[in-house]
Protein backbone atom coordinates (compact mmCIF):
# COMPACT_ATOMS: atom_id res chain seq x y z
CA UNK A 1 0.00 0.00 0.00
CA UNK A 2 2.81 2.31 0.91
CA UNK A 3 4.50 1.52 -2.32
CA UNK A 4 1.38 2.34 -4.23
CA UNK A 5 0.99 5.65 -2.50
CA UNK A 6 4.62 6.43 -3.12
CA UNK A 7 4.48 5.74 -6.85
CA UNK A 8 1.29 7.71 -7.16
CA UNK A 9 2.88 10.66 -5.49
CA UNK A 10 5.98 10.36 -7.60
CA UNK A 11 4.02 10.22 -10.78
CA UNK A 12 2.16 13.32 -9.73
CA UNK A 13 5.37 15.23 -9.18
CA UNK A 14 6.70 13.85 -12.44
CA UNK A 15 3.54 15.00 -14.15
CA UNK A 16 3.90 18.49 -12.75
CA UNK A 17 7.48 18.57 -13.96
CA UNK A 18 6.37 17.54 -17.43
CA UNK A 19 3.71 20.23 -17.49
CA UNK A 20 6.15 22.91 -16.38
CA UNK A 21 8.69 21.77 -18.94
CA UNK A 22 6.12 21.88 -21.71
CA UNK A 23 4.95 25.33 -20.61
CA UNK A 24 8.51 26.60 -20.49
CA UNK A 25 9.47 25.24 -23.92
CA UNK A 26 6.33 26.44 -25.67
CA UNK A 27 6.47 29.90 -24.10
CA UNK A 28 10.18 30.17 -24.87
CA UNK A 29 9.50 29.42 -28.53
CA UNK A 30 6.81 32.11 -28.51
CA UNK A 31 9.16 34.65 -26.94
CA UNK A 32 11.98 33.96 -29.39
CA UNK A 33 9.48 34.69 -32.20
CA UNK A 34 9.19 38.23 -30.86
CA UNK A 35 12.87 38.78 -30.11
CA UNK A 36 12.93 42.15 -31.89
CA UNK A 37 10.21 43.32 -29.54
CA UNK A 38 12.08 42.01 -26.54
CA UNK A 39 15.25 43.76 -27.70
CA UNK A 40 13.39 47.06 -27.84
CA UNK A 41 11.87 46.44 -24.47
CA UNK A 42 15.26 45.66 -23.00
CA UNK A 43 16.58 48.98 -24.29
CA UNK A 44 13.65 50.78 -22.72
CA UNK A 45 14.82 49.80 -19.23
CA UNK A 46 17.49 52.46 -19.24
CA UNK A 47 16.20 54.58 -16.36
CA UNK A 48 18.92 53.38 -13.92
CA UNK A 49 21.55 54.42 -16.47
CA UNK A 50 19.94 57.85 -16.93
CA UNK A 51 19.95 58.26 -13.16
CA UNK A 52 23.58 57.13 -13.05
CA UNK A 53 24.62 59.81 -15.52
CA UNK A 54 22.78 62.45 -13.47
CA UNK A 55 24.15 61.35 -10.11
CA UNK A 56 27.71 60.95 -11.35
CA UNK A 57 27.78 64.70 -12.03
CA UNK A 58 26.54 65.52 -8.54
CA UNK A 59 28.60 66.11 -5.42
CA UNK A 60 25.78 64.79 -3.26
CA UNK A 61 26.83 61.16 -3.68
CA UNK A 62 29.77 61.53 -1.27
CA UNK A 63 27.46 62.66 1.50
CA UNK A 64 25.69 59.31 1.47
CA UNK A 65 28.81 57.22 1.27
CA UNK A 66 29.28 56.52 -2.42
CA UNK A 67 31.98 57.32 -4.91
CA UNK A 68 31.54 57.47 -8.70
CA UNK A 69 32.77 53.90 -9.20
CA UNK A 70 30.63 52.04 -6.68
CA UNK A 71 27.69 54.22 -7.61
CA UNK A 72 28.16 53.03 -11.20
CA UNK A 73 28.27 49.44 -9.96
CA UNK A 74 25.05 49.97 -8.07
CA UNK A 75 23.15 51.48 -10.98
CA UNK A 76 24.46 49.00 -13.55
CA UNK A 77 23.35 46.21 -11.21
CA UNK A 78 19.99 47.91 -10.87
CA UNK A 79 19.76 47.96 -14.66
CA UNK A 80 20.40 44.20 -14.80
CA UNK A 81 18.01 43.45 -11.94
CA UNK A 82 15.31 45.50 -13.60
CA UNK A 83 15.73 43.54 -16.81
CA UNK A 84 15.06 40.26 -15.02
CA UNK A 85 12.19 41.48 -12.89
CA UNK A 86 10.05 42.83 -15.73
CA UNK A 87 6.39 41.96 -15.18
CA UNK A 88 3.52 42.55 -17.59
CA UNK A 89 0.96 40.12 -16.25
CA UNK A 90 -1.66 42.85 -15.74
CA UNK A 91 -1.67 43.78 -19.40
CA UNK A 92 -1.88 40.19 -20.67
CA UNK A 93 -4.48 39.14 -18.13
CA UNK A 94 -6.63 42.14 -18.98
CA UNK A 95 -6.41 41.32 -22.66
CA UNK A 96 -7.19 37.64 -22.09
CA UNK A 97 -10.12 38.59 -19.90
CA UNK A 98 -11.59 41.02 -22.43
CA UNK A 99 -11.22 38.57 -25.30
CA UNK A 100 -12.45 35.59 -23.31
CA UNK A 101 -9.20 33.68 -23.71
CA UNK A 102 -9.20 32.60 -20.10
CA UNK A 103 -12.04 30.13 -20.75
CA UNK A 104 -9.84 27.43 -22.37
CA UNK A 105 -7.17 27.96 -19.74
CA UNK A 106 -9.68 27.27 -17.00
CA UNK A 107 -10.57 23.92 -18.57
CA UNK A 108 -6.98 22.73 -18.46
CA UNK A 109 -5.70 20.86 -15.39
CA UNK A 110 -3.01 23.49 -14.75
CA UNK A 111 -3.74 26.58 -12.66
CA UNK A 112 -3.63 29.52 -15.11
CA UNK A 113 -1.15 31.41 -12.93
CA UNK A 114 1.57 29.00 -14.06
CA UNK A 115 0.95 29.80 -17.69
CA UNK A 116 1.61 33.49 -17.03
CA UNK A 117 4.48 32.75 -14.68
CA UNK A 118 6.27 30.61 -17.23
CA UNK A 119 5.75 33.09 -20.01
CA UNK A 120 7.67 35.59 -17.84
CA UNK A 121 10.40 33.13 -16.92
CA UNK A 122 10.98 32.03 -20.48
CA UNK A 123 11.08 35.65 -21.59
CA UNK A 124 13.89 36.21 -19.11
CA UNK A 125 15.90 33.49 -20.80
CA UNK A 126 15.34 34.97 -24.24
CA UNK A 127 16.40 38.33 -22.85
CA UNK A 128 19.64 37.06 -21.33
CA UNK A 129 21.86 37.37 -24.44
CA UNK A 130 20.55 40.90 -25.09
CA UNK A 131 21.34 42.01 -21.57
CA UNK A 132 24.82 40.52 -21.80
CA UNK A 133 25.37 42.37 -25.07
CA UNK A 134 24.22 45.70 -23.60
CA UNK A 135 26.45 45.25 -20.54
CA UNK A 136 29.36 44.39 -22.82
CA UNK A 137 28.81 47.58 -24.86
CA UNK A 138 28.53 49.63 -21.70
CA UNK A 139 31.86 48.32 -20.39
CA UNK A 140 33.40 48.91 -23.80
CA UNK A 141 32.57 52.61 -23.61
CA UNK A 142 33.20 52.93 -19.91
CA UNK A 143 36.00 50.45 -19.09
CA UNK A 144 36.61 51.98 -15.66
CA UNK A 145 33.16 50.80 -14.57
CA UNK A 146 34.09 47.17 -15.14
CA UNK A 147 33.82 44.69 -12.29
CA UNK A 148 33.08 41.02 -11.86
CA UNK A 149 31.11 39.70 -8.92
CA UNK A 150 32.67 36.54 -7.48
CA UNK A 151 30.94 33.23 -8.12
CA UNK A 152 29.47 32.96 -4.61
CA UNK A 153 27.83 36.37 -4.66
CA UNK A 154 26.73 35.84 -8.25
CA UNK A 155 24.80 32.71 -7.29
CA UNK A 156 23.25 34.45 -4.28
CA UNK A 157 22.39 37.42 -6.52
CA UNK A 158 20.63 35.22 -9.07
CA UNK A 159 18.61 33.69 -6.24
CA UNK A 160 17.72 37.12 -4.86
CA UNK A 161 16.77 38.39 -8.30
CA UNK A 162 14.45 35.46 -8.77
CA UNK A 163 12.81 36.06 -5.38
CA UNK A 164 12.48 39.73 -6.35
CA UNK A 165 10.81 38.73 -9.58
CA UNK A 166 8.38 36.42 -7.76
CA UNK A 167 7.53 39.18 -5.30
CA UNK A 168 6.80 41.66 -8.09
CA UNK A 169 4.87 39.07 -10.05
CA UNK A 170 2.65 38.31 -7.04
CA UNK A 171 1.91 41.99 -6.45
CA UNK A 172 0.93 42.49 -10.08
CA UNK A 173 -1.08 39.28 -10.13
CA UNK A 174 -3.13 40.36 -7.11
CA UNK A 175 -3.86 43.73 -8.69
CA UNK A 176 -4.61 42.09 -12.02
CA UNK A 177 -7.53 40.31 -10.37
CA UNK A 178 -9.33 43.65 -10.34
CA UNK A 179 -9.76 43.33 -14.11
CA UNK A 180 -12.39 40.67 -13.44
CA UNK A 181 -14.48 43.40 -11.86
CA UNK A 182 -13.84 46.48 -13.99
CA UNK A 183 -12.49 45.12 -17.33
CA UNK A 184 -9.96 47.93 -17.51
CA UNK A 185 -7.32 47.31 -14.87
CA UNK A 186 -4.16 48.20 -16.73
CA UNK A 187 -4.47 51.82 -15.70
CA UNK A 188 -3.75 50.53 -12.21
CA UNK A 189 -0.36 49.45 -13.50
CA UNK A 190 0.59 53.10 -13.90
CA UNK A 191 -0.33 53.58 -10.27
CA UNK A 192 1.71 50.58 -9.19
CA UNK A 193 4.69 51.95 -11.08
CA UNK A 194 4.92 54.99 -8.80
CA UNK A 195 5.99 53.28 -5.56
CA UNK A 196 8.16 50.97 -7.65
CA UNK A 197 9.96 53.97 -9.14
CA UNK A 198 10.37 56.03 -6.03
CA UNK A 199 10.69 53.50 -3.16
CA UNK A 200 12.67 50.68 -4.77
CA UNK A 201 15.99 52.49 -5.08
CA UNK A 202 15.74 52.88 -8.83
CA UNK A 203 16.22 56.65 -8.86
CA UNK A 204 18.84 56.72 -6.12
CA UNK A 205 20.36 54.17 -3.75
CA UNK A 206 18.33 53.90 -0.56
CA UNK A 207 21.18 55.47 1.44
CA UNK A 208 20.39 58.81 -0.21
CA UNK A 209 16.89 58.90 1.24
CA UNK A 210 16.01 60.87 4.36
CA UNK A 211 15.90 58.58 7.41
CA UNK A 212 12.10 58.40 7.86
CA UNK A 213 11.37 57.74 4.21
CA UNK A 214 14.08 55.08 4.14
CA UNK A 215 12.59 53.30 7.17
CA UNK A 216 9.15 53.48 5.60
CA UNK A 217 10.43 52.16 2.26
CA UNK A 218 12.07 49.19 3.95
CA UNK A 219 8.71 48.12 5.34
CA UNK A 220 7.19 47.99 1.85
CA UNK A 221 8.07 45.19 -0.57
CA UNK A 222 9.63 47.54 -3.13
CA UNK A 223 13.27 47.81 -1.93
CA UNK A 224 13.47 44.02 -1.98
CA UNK A 225 12.53 44.06 -5.65
CA UNK A 226 15.41 46.29 -6.72
CA UNK A 227 17.66 47.70 -4.00
CA UNK A 228 18.49 44.42 -2.25
CA UNK A 229 19.38 42.37 -5.36
CA UNK A 230 21.30 45.31 -6.86
CA UNK A 231 23.39 45.61 -3.74
CA UNK A 232 24.04 41.87 -3.83
CA UNK A 233 25.05 41.93 -7.48
CA UNK A 234 27.36 44.89 -7.07
CA UNK A 235 28.97 43.04 -4.11
CA UNK A 236 28.60 46.01 -1.79
CA UNK A 237 28.28 45.96 1.95
CA UNK A 238 25.08 47.30 3.41
CA UNK A 239 25.40 50.60 5.19
CA UNK A 240 22.21 49.95 7.07
CA UNK A 241 20.41 47.00 8.53
CA UNK A 242 18.03 45.25 6.19
CA UNK A 243 15.37 43.21 7.88
CA UNK A 244 15.22 40.15 5.72
CA UNK A 245 12.19 38.96 7.73
CA UNK A 246 10.14 41.69 6.12
CA UNK A 247 10.82 40.16 2.73
CA UNK A 248 9.71 36.70 3.84
CA UNK A 249 6.62 38.02 5.58
CA UNK A 250 5.66 39.81 2.36
CA UNK A 251 6.18 36.67 0.27
CA UNK A 252 4.03 34.55 2.59
CA UNK A 253 1.30 37.18 2.89
CA UNK A 254 1.18 37.90 -0.84
CA UNK A 255 1.12 34.20 -1.75
CA UNK A 256 -1.86 33.61 0.51
CA UNK A 257 -3.64 36.73 -0.69
CA UNK A 258 -3.03 35.82 -4.34
CA UNK A 259 -4.74 32.45 -3.88
CA UNK A 260 -7.79 34.04 -2.33
CA UNK A 261 -8.07 36.92 -4.78
CA UNK A 262 -7.86 34.46 -7.66
CA UNK A 263 -10.73 32.43 -6.18
CA UNK A 264 -12.84 35.52 -5.70
CA UNK A 265 -11.88 37.05 -9.03
CA UNK A 266 -12.46 34.01 -11.19
CA UNK A 267 -16.01 33.74 -9.87
CA UNK A 268 -16.65 37.08 -11.51
CA UNK A 269 -15.15 35.95 -14.77
CA UNK A 270 -17.98 35.92 -17.25
CA UNK A 271 -16.20 35.01 -20.49
CA UNK A 272 -16.61 37.31 -23.43
CA UNK A 273 -19.94 38.85 -24.25
CA UNK A 274 -21.56 38.36 -20.89
Amino acid at each position, binding site marked *: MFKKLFTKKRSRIFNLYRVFRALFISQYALMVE*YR*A*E*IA*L*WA*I*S*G*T*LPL*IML*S*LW*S*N*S*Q*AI*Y*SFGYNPINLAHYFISAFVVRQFTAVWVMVSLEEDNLEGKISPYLLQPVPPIFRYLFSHISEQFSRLPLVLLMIFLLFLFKPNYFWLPNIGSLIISIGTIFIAFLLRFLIHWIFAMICFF*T*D*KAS*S*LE*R*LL*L*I*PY*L*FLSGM*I*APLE*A*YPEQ*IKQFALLTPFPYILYLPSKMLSSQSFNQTINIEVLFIWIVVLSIVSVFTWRIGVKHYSAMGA
Partner: protein
Amino acid sequence: MLRINIILKYLRILFQFWSTSLSIELEYKLNLFVEILSTIGNLAGSLFVLSMFYTADNTLGGWPWHSSLIILGFYTLIESFTISFLQPNLSRIVKQVQNGTLDFVLLKPVNSQLWLSFRTFSPYGLPSLIVGIILIYIGLVKGNYYVNELSLIISFVMFICGLIILYSLWFLIASTSIWFVKIWNANEVLRSVLISGRYPISAYPLALRPILTFLLPVAFLTTVPAQALLGIAPFSLMMVGVTIAIVFFVFSINFWKYALKFYTSASS
Protein backbone atom coordinates in the same frame (compact mmCIF):
# COMPACT_ATOMS: atom_id res chain seq x y z
CA MET B 1 -12.06 79.99 -50.04
CA LEU B 2 -11.61 76.32 -50.68
CA ARG B 3 -8.84 76.16 -48.09
CA ILE B 4 -11.07 77.60 -45.41
CA ASN B 5 -13.73 75.06 -46.26
CA ILE B 6 -11.27 72.22 -45.80
CA ILE B 7 -10.02 73.57 -42.50
CA LEU B 8 -13.60 73.99 -41.27
CA LYS B 9 -14.38 70.45 -42.34
CA TYR B 10 -11.43 69.05 -40.41
CA LEU B 11 -12.27 71.10 -37.34
CA ARG B 12 -15.79 69.72 -37.43
CA ILE B 13 -14.45 66.19 -37.78
CA LEU B 14 -12.04 66.65 -34.86
CA PHE B 15 -14.85 67.98 -32.70
CA GLN B 16 -16.93 64.90 -33.51
CA PHE B 17 -13.99 62.58 -32.82
CA TRP B 18 -13.20 64.07 -29.46
CA SER B 19 -16.72 64.39 -28.18
CA THR B 20 -17.44 60.72 -28.95
CA SER B 21 -14.18 59.51 -27.38
CA LEU B 22 -14.89 61.64 -24.33
CA SER B 23 -18.24 59.97 -23.84
CA ILE B 24 -16.63 56.53 -24.28
CA GLU B 25 -13.97 57.28 -21.69
CA LEU B 26 -16.49 58.57 -19.18
CA GLU B 27 -17.90 55.04 -19.09
CA TYR B 28 -14.86 54.02 -17.04
CA LYS B 29 -15.11 56.37 -14.11
CA LEU B 30 -12.63 54.49 -11.95
CA ASN B 31 -9.89 55.41 -14.40
CA LEU B 32 -10.24 59.13 -13.73
CA PHE B 33 -9.71 58.55 -10.03
CA VAL B 34 -6.69 56.35 -10.74
CA GLU B 35 -5.27 58.96 -13.09
CA ILE B 36 -5.61 61.81 -10.60
CA LEU B 37 -3.99 59.64 -7.94
CA SER B 38 -1.08 58.73 -10.19
CA THR B 39 -0.54 62.35 -11.25
CA ILE B 40 -0.28 63.38 -7.61
CA GLY B 41 1.97 60.44 -6.81
CA ASN B 42 4.23 61.21 -9.74
CA LEU B 43 4.43 64.86 -8.75
CA ALA B 44 5.37 64.01 -5.16
CA GLY B 45 7.96 61.51 -6.35
CA SER B 46 9.53 63.86 -8.89
CA LEU B 47 9.78 66.69 -6.37
CA PHE B 48 11.33 64.28 -3.89
CA VAL B 49 13.98 63.12 -6.37
CA LEU B 50 14.70 66.68 -7.42
CA SER B 51 15.14 67.73 -3.79
CA MET B 52 17.70 64.95 -3.31
CA PHE B 53 19.91 66.54 -5.95
CA TYR B 54 19.78 69.81 -4.07
CA THR B 55 20.81 68.46 -0.66
CA ALA B 56 24.56 68.88 -1.25
CA ASP B 57 24.65 71.49 -4.02
CA ASN B 58 22.42 74.45 -4.63
CA THR B 59 22.40 73.82 -8.37
CA LEU B 60 21.68 71.01 -10.74
CA GLY B 61 23.79 71.57 -13.83
CA GLY B 62 23.78 75.30 -13.12
CA TRP B 63 20.02 75.51 -12.58
CA PRO B 64 18.72 76.77 -9.23
CA TRP B 65 15.79 74.99 -7.57
CA HIS B 66 13.02 77.25 -8.85
CA SER B 67 14.08 77.09 -12.49
CA SER B 68 14.32 73.30 -12.21
CA LEU B 69 10.67 73.43 -11.16
CA ILE B 70 9.89 75.17 -14.45
CA ILE B 71 11.59 72.35 -16.36
CA LEU B 72 9.62 69.80 -14.37
CA GLY B 73 6.50 71.81 -15.23
CA PHE B 74 7.23 71.62 -18.94
CA TYR B 75 7.91 67.90 -18.57
CA THR B 76 4.50 67.44 -16.95
CA LEU B 77 2.86 69.35 -19.82
CA ILE B 78 4.59 67.07 -22.33
CA GLU B 79 3.33 64.10 -20.36
CA SER B 80 -0.20 65.43 -20.49
CA PHE B 81 0.03 65.70 -24.29
CA THR B 82 1.36 62.14 -24.42
CA ILE B 83 -1.46 60.76 -22.29
CA SER B 84 -4.18 62.70 -24.10
CA PHE B 85 -3.14 62.23 -27.74
CA LEU B 86 -0.02 60.26 -28.54
CA GLN B 87 -0.65 57.18 -26.46
CA PRO B 88 -4.31 56.49 -27.22
CA ASN B 89 -3.95 57.21 -30.96
CA LEU B 90 -0.57 56.06 -32.09
CA SER B 91 -0.70 52.79 -30.17
CA ARG B 92 -3.77 51.95 -32.23
CA ILE B 93 -1.90 52.12 -35.53
CA VAL B 94 -0.09 48.95 -34.56
CA LYS B 95 -3.34 47.20 -33.80
CA GLN B 96 -4.92 48.36 -37.04
CA VAL B 97 -2.04 47.03 -39.08
CA GLN B 98 -2.22 43.74 -37.20
CA ASN B 99 -5.93 43.28 -37.71
CA GLY B 100 -6.05 44.79 -41.18
CA THR B 101 -8.58 47.42 -40.11
CA LEU B 102 -6.30 50.09 -41.51
CA ASP B 103 -8.12 49.42 -44.79
CA PHE B 104 -11.19 51.22 -43.49
CA VAL B 105 -9.16 54.24 -42.49
CA LEU B 106 -7.47 54.48 -45.88
CA LEU B 107 -10.81 54.33 -47.66
CA LYS B 108 -12.17 57.34 -45.82
CA PRO B 109 -12.07 60.74 -47.55
CA VAL B 110 -9.98 62.12 -44.71
CA ASN B 111 -6.22 62.52 -44.51
CA SER B 112 -5.12 59.18 -43.05
CA GLN B 113 -2.31 60.62 -40.94
CA LEU B 114 -4.68 63.10 -39.35
CA TRP B 115 -7.25 60.39 -38.75
CA LEU B 116 -4.71 58.09 -37.13
CA SER B 117 -3.06 60.79 -35.04
CA PHE B 118 -6.09 62.55 -33.61
CA ARG B 119 -8.92 60.03 -33.78
CA THR B 120 -9.32 59.80 -30.02
CA PHE B 121 -8.69 62.07 -27.12
CA SER B 122 -8.21 60.92 -23.58
CA PRO B 123 -9.31 63.30 -20.81
CA TYR B 124 -6.79 61.76 -18.42
CA GLY B 125 -4.07 64.14 -19.52
CA LEU B 126 -6.00 66.95 -17.84
CA PRO B 127 -4.61 66.51 -14.28
CA SER B 128 -1.07 66.66 -15.65
CA LEU B 129 -1.92 69.76 -17.66
CA ILE B 130 -3.11 71.57 -14.55
CA VAL B 131 -0.16 70.39 -12.45
CA GLY B 132 2.31 71.44 -15.16
CA ILE B 133 0.93 74.97 -15.36
CA ILE B 134 0.95 75.29 -11.57
CA LEU B 135 4.57 74.10 -11.37
CA ILE B 136 5.72 76.64 -13.96
CA TYR B 137 3.80 79.40 -12.19
CA ILE B 138 5.25 78.53 -8.78
CA GLY B 139 8.75 78.34 -10.24
CA LEU B 140 8.39 81.78 -11.79
CA VAL B 141 6.86 83.47 -8.76
CA LYS B 142 9.08 81.91 -6.06
CA GLY B 143 12.19 82.38 -8.16
CA ASN B 144 11.34 86.08 -8.62
CA TYR B 145 11.65 85.83 -12.38
CA TYR B 146 10.29 88.64 -14.48
CA VAL B 147 8.63 87.41 -17.66
CA ASN B 148 7.57 89.80 -20.41
CA GLU B 149 5.05 89.03 -23.14
CA LEU B 150 7.73 88.46 -25.74
CA SER B 151 9.52 85.69 -23.83
CA LEU B 152 6.14 84.14 -23.01
CA ILE B 153 5.30 83.98 -26.71
CA ILE B 154 8.75 82.68 -27.68
CA SER B 155 8.56 80.02 -24.97
CA PHE B 156 5.13 78.97 -26.20
CA VAL B 157 6.42 78.69 -29.78
CA MET B 158 9.42 76.63 -28.62
CA PHE B 159 7.12 74.38 -26.61
CA ILE B 160 4.92 73.81 -29.67
CA CYS B 161 8.09 72.94 -31.61
CA GLY B 162 8.93 70.44 -28.89
CA LEU B 163 5.48 68.86 -29.19
CA ILE B 164 5.87 68.64 -32.97
CA ILE B 165 9.28 66.95 -32.61
CA LEU B 166 7.88 64.44 -30.14
CA TYR B 167 4.81 63.77 -32.23
CA SER B 168 6.84 63.27 -35.41
CA LEU B 169 9.25 60.87 -33.71
CA TRP B 170 6.39 58.89 -32.22
CA PHE B 171 4.49 58.78 -35.48
CA LEU B 172 7.63 57.71 -37.36
CA ILE B 173 8.12 54.78 -35.02
CA ALA B 174 4.44 53.86 -35.18
CA SER B 175 4.44 53.91 -38.98
CA THR B 176 7.28 51.40 -39.12
CA SER B 177 4.68 48.91 -37.88
CA ILE B 178 3.68 48.60 -41.56
CA TRP B 179 6.81 46.49 -41.95
CA PHE B 180 7.42 45.09 -38.49
CA VAL B 181 3.77 44.70 -37.41
CA LYS B 182 4.54 44.39 -33.69
CA ILE B 183 6.29 47.58 -32.69
CA TRP B 184 4.48 48.44 -29.48
CA ASN B 185 7.68 48.36 -27.45
CA ALA B 186 9.43 50.89 -29.65
CA ASN B 187 7.28 53.57 -28.10
CA GLU B 188 8.34 52.33 -24.69
CA VAL B 189 11.92 53.08 -25.73
CA LEU B 190 10.90 56.60 -26.67
CA ARG B 191 9.04 57.07 -23.40
CA SER B 192 12.00 55.86 -21.38
CA VAL B 193 14.35 58.30 -23.11
CA LEU B 194 11.80 61.04 -22.57
CA ILE B 195 12.17 60.64 -18.80
CA SER B 196 15.58 62.27 -19.12
CA GLY B 197 13.72 65.50 -19.97
CA ARG B 198 12.74 65.87 -16.33
CA TYR B 199 16.08 67.45 -15.59
CA PRO B 200 18.04 70.21 -17.32
CA ILE B 201 20.27 68.98 -20.12
CA SER B 202 23.29 70.65 -18.54
CA ALA B 203 23.00 68.21 -15.60
CA TYR B 204 24.09 65.34 -17.85
CA PRO B 205 27.70 64.41 -18.65
CA LEU B 206 29.20 66.33 -21.56
CA ALA B 207 29.29 63.27 -23.81
CA LEU B 208 25.54 62.73 -23.52
CA ARG B 209 24.41 66.30 -24.21
CA PRO B 210 24.84 66.29 -28.02
CA ILE B 211 22.89 63.01 -28.17
CA LEU B 212 20.06 64.49 -26.11
CA THR B 213 20.05 67.63 -28.25
CA PHE B 214 20.35 66.40 -31.82
CA LEU B 215 19.85 62.64 -32.00
CA LEU B 216 16.98 62.33 -29.51
CA PRO B 217 16.03 65.97 -29.15
CA VAL B 218 14.91 65.81 -25.53
CA ALA B 219 16.53 69.21 -24.94
CA PHE B 220 13.91 70.95 -27.10
CA LEU B 221 11.03 69.41 -25.19
CA THR B 222 11.73 70.87 -21.76
CA THR B 223 15.04 72.69 -21.34
CA VAL B 224 14.74 75.07 -24.31
CA PRO B 225 11.15 76.22 -23.60
CA ALA B 226 12.16 76.82 -19.97
CA GLN B 227 15.22 78.78 -21.09
CA ALA B 228 13.08 80.80 -23.47
CA LEU B 229 10.65 81.62 -20.66
CA LEU B 230 13.50 82.88 -18.50
CA GLY B 231 14.93 84.79 -21.46
CA ILE B 232 18.26 82.92 -21.41
CA ALA B 233 17.82 80.69 -24.47
CA PRO B 234 20.54 81.15 -27.08
CA PHE B 235 19.04 82.36 -30.33
CA SER B 236 20.96 79.81 -32.42
CA LEU B 237 19.67 76.93 -30.29
CA MET B 238 16.08 78.09 -30.79
CA MET B 239 16.61 78.28 -34.54
CA VAL B 240 17.96 74.73 -34.45
CA GLY B 241 14.85 73.69 -32.55
CA VAL B 242 12.50 75.23 -35.09
CA THR B 243 14.45 73.64 -37.95
CA ILE B 244 14.43 70.20 -36.33
CA ALA B 245 10.68 70.48 -35.74
CA ILE B 246 9.97 71.37 -39.38
CA VAL B 247 12.32 68.72 -40.76
CA PHE B 248 10.94 65.99 -38.50
CA PHE B 249 7.33 66.90 -39.28
CA VAL B 250 7.79 67.00 -43.06
CA PHE B 251 9.75 63.78 -42.90
CA SER B 252 7.00 62.05 -40.90
CA ILE B 253 4.41 63.02 -43.55
CA ASN B 254 6.53 61.75 -46.43
CA PHE B 255 7.60 58.66 -44.57
CA TRP B 256 3.97 57.74 -43.93
CA LYS B 257 3.17 58.11 -47.64
CA TYR B 258 6.17 55.94 -48.45
CA ALA B 259 5.27 53.32 -45.84
CA LEU B 260 1.72 53.03 -47.16
CA LYS B 261 3.09 51.75 -50.47
CA PHE B 262 4.18 48.65 -48.59
CA TYR B 263 0.90 48.09 -46.80
CA THR B 264 -0.54 44.76 -47.83
CA SER B 265 -3.46 44.51 -45.40
CA ALA B 266 -3.76 41.52 -43.07
CA SER B 267 -3.23 37.95 -44.26
CA SER B 268 -1.92 38.86 -47.69
